[in-house]
């Protein structure tokens, strides 16, 4: 079995969605999520560990938009991914997958699901469509 590489992921993403931005090891895609809304979603190469992984991530708000305890309880029931916060207070919905043995078709589902849930979380606290 041929192992997937970041170049494979990049080509797959580019052939399926318009890429809104790219820096080394990070692609951003803007998904339409219905009713004129969009959701910016990133695909990040994480190569620092024992095996390279992909992290799919989408910001949906800032601290204060969602009670942290409620976020942690939601993390226990979401089918994929989880709510995380960064040091600057950004709230992010994210999921990680191993890169090497990744079936690229699974990336399609994960990307769309992360974008959908992140947009739902953004709408949960606000009617804005900032991300």
């Amino acid at each position, binding site marked *: 079995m041929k192992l997937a590489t970041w170049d494979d992921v990049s080509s797959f993403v580019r052939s399926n969605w318009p890429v809104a931005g790219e820096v080394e090891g990070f692609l951003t895609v803007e998904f339409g999520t219905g009713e004129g809304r969009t959701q910016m979603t990133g695909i990040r190469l*994480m190569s*620092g*560990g024992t*095996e390279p*992984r992909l*992290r799919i991530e989408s910001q949906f708000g800032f*601290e204060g938009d969602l009670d*942290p*305890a409620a*976020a*942690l*309880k939601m*993390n*226990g029931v*979401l*089918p*994929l*991914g*989880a*709510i*995380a*916060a*960064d*040091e600057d207070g950004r*709230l*992010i919905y*994210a*999921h*990680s*997958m*191993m890169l*090497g*043995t*990744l*079936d690229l*078709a*699974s990336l399609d*589902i*994960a990307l769309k699901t992360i974008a959908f849930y992140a947009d739902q979380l953004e709408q949960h606290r606000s009617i804005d469509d900032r991300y």
Partner: protein
Amino acid sequence: MSATFDEIWAELRDWVVAFFADERIGSVRDASLRDSITVLAHVPNGRQQQMRISRVRVNPDDEWVELAAVVGLERVLGHRAALVQNQAVVGHFALDENGTYLYRHTLQMKYLAAPSDQFEVTLARMLSLSDYFEQQLTGQDNW
């Protein structure tokens, strides 16, 4: 024709039971439920870590496998700190209905035909990380 979710889950379950039949690796703690199996793994430094592996049905076309381990009571880690820690490469903190922290990760069932590196490597990482967090947060080896 691709395997059904029932077939994939049955193969994963069989693989887990066979893998943990080796007492040097650990043991199966509970296989009484059809949609979940709980294992106890030996991890470095003589410690052990329990992990529940469950089937999660979202809809007939979308099923996931959940890996979840108890790592401490709610009081051992602040909520914000837990969310910041969720930037880890594998797994995330979640709170269950009993006020217990779980360390949890999910995998798409459709792409896990056993033997699956995605499943095996992720299970090994999750066992190791769950035990690490339990030790860091509680200093104990209860789960």
